[in-house]
């Protein structure tokens, strides 16, 4: 392998090794019986403000984010910056809605969204819909984290196809699987700290050094073609890129916390205060994300996509190669090793949390609900550990044998699917008004419509909604969740009238939702 960047690879391996060790050692951190599901799957619910900050940040800022957002800026320009208003919206959501969820889940020992919906609405089928949606939406997301690792491994010079090139990915996978199995959520929580320090360091250095190398921001933005510099002004009779941009930010924000791994990160916090404090502190990550989007423009200005030494990388990974190429071009090998380790580790953390979250869902809301009603604590934890392994294995197989673009398309669909759980989960935190069967109908309609609309637009994110002579292009997820809500709202009085007149099942009381 003549092209391997040995210095960078060496540092990468060392940092990865440290982190692997940390993942295993984490089992003894804030010691608990890891044969209990809430210890394995929620870290014993003992993470204070700072650890929660790292963990939830690790959910929001994944390796895929670091690769894909700049890639989008590089390819499509200004629209990639939707990531910034997206982050502006998520934190109040966390502050208001998810604090309530934290309290009620804490009070009743709920570990998953499925648990909450089951308790709140007393309907195991609605809970199953939420559970299955959660698991199915998470899988492509895990696969895409592995893609993030694949890209940096490729950028280190370990290229080509076949077993040799896949070996490092397999090694990373084995490490990930092993420490998740042994330490549960404590593993990614401890590693998240290292990851975030590395990411911040890399981003800060890069945002200062690269613009200096390129001659200043004025020069960088001057290199961006005019049609990519700003959002295209909408033509007559359409809200064009404006509504597309706003709905993309809104829909992504709503969807984020509905993903199982977000809820897992949140529920592992030790108090509602930790959640609220985090809502004010997490925006620090947003600034980093905004800066990362600018990296895509740095790539354009530096012209790395046109340089011959990166041609192979761009050919293999497309615009996902933008950030690695930029880093290789702008920094000495040792810093590249650190930066790539940051991205690679940045894949391990969310992949671990996502697999744990999916495992929690299966164990509590499928296995315990439908297969074996009375598992012992130890059995529960064992099932979860195995499922987390299977889920990761499935993602690995997918990445190794299926073209990446399918993973991306599935992830897009996953966003549309997961947002359909908004009515029972997010609105359920505020009101019991909806009839549980009406919610299930709304979920079904939203999921079906969303999938159809996405397929009809060739799996792009925007659906051109036509009302009369006006077009309102918008993120499919937003339109379908509105449809979902409308269906649920209309059917609620209908189904209530048809029901037996008993008071609606609800394990929770109003006081459970706040301090």
């Amino acid at each position, binding site marked *: 392998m003549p092209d391997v960047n040995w210095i960078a690879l060496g540092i990468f391996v060392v940092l990865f090794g440290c982190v692997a060790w940390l993942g295993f050692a984490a089992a003894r951190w804030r010691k608990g019986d890891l044969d209990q599901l809430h210890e394995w799957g929620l870290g014993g619910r003992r993470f204070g403000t700072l650890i929660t900050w790292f963990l939830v940040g690790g959910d929001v800022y994944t390796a895929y984010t670091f690769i894909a957002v700049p890639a989008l800026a590089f390819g499509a320009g200004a629209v990639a910056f939707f990531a910034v*208003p997206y982050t502006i919206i998520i934190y109040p959501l966390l502050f208001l809605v998810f604090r309530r969820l934290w309290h009620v889940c804490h009070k009743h020992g709920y570990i998953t969204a499925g648990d909450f919906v089951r308790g709140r609405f007393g309907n195991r089928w609605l809970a199953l819909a939420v559970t299955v949606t959660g698991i199915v939406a998470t899988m492509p997301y895990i696969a895409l984290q592995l893609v993030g690792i694949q890209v940096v491994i490729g950028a280190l010079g370990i290229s080509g196809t076949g077993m040799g090139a896949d070996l490092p990915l397999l090694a990373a996978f084995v490490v990930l699987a092993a420490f998740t199995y042994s330490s549960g959520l404590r593993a990614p929580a401890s590693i998240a700290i290292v990851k975030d320090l590395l990411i911040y360091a890399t981003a800060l250095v890069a945002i200062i050094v690269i613009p200096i190398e390129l001659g200043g921001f004025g020069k960088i*933005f001057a290199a961006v073609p005019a049609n990519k510099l700003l959002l295209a002004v909408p033509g007559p009779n359409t809200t064009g890129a404006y509504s597309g*941009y706003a709905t993309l*930010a809104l829909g992504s924000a709503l969807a984020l916390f509905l993903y199982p791994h977000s809820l897992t990160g949140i529920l592992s916090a030790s108090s509602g205060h930790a959640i609220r404090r985090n809502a004010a502190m997490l*925006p620090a990550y947003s600034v980093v994300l905004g800066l990362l989007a600018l990296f895509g423009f740095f790539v354009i200005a530096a012209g790395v996509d046109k340089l011959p030494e990166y041609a192979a990388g761009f050919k293999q990974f497309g615009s996902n190669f933008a950030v690695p190429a930029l880093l290789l071009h702008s920094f000495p090998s040792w810093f590249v090793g650190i930066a790539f380790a940051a991205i690679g580790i940045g894949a391990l953390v969310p992949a671990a949390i996502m697999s744990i979250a999916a495992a929690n869902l299966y164990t509590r809301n499928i296995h315990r609900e439908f297969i074996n009603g009375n598992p012992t604590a130890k059995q529960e934890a064992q099932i979860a550990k195995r499922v987390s392994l299977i889920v990761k294995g499935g993602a690995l197989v997918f990445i190794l044998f299926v073209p990446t673009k399918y993973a991306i398309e599935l992830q897009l669909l996953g966003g549309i699917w997961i947002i359909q759980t908004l009515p029972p989960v997010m609105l359920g935190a505020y009101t019991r008004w909806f009839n549980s069967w009406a919610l299930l109908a709304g979920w079904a309609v939203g999921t079906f419509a969303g999938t159809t609309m996405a397929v009809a637009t060739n799996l792009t994110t925007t659906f051109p909604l036509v009302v009369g002579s006006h077009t309102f292009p918008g993120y499919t997820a937003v339109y379908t969740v509105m449809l979902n809500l409308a269906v649920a709202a209309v059917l609620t009085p209908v189904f209530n009238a048809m029901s037996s007149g008993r008071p609606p099942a609800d394990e929770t009381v109003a006081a459970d939702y706040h301090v």
Partner: protein
Amino acid sequence: MIGAQKKRGGWSWWYLLFVIQFAVALWPPFYNRVEPTLIGIPFFYWFQLLWVIVSAVFTAIVYFATSD
């Protein structure tokens, strides 16, 4: 009104800060322009980044103002 306790779990006027935060963030026509630039960065970019910081401040204000 400053420091007035909100009802448990109810609305607080401080939450209006969040409404402002959302409204500005989700209104692209307002910030979709190049001028004025800041150290060479077009308005579209630096304004949204600035708005992140403003939003964090708003959230911190709401947190302290509505603390139980």
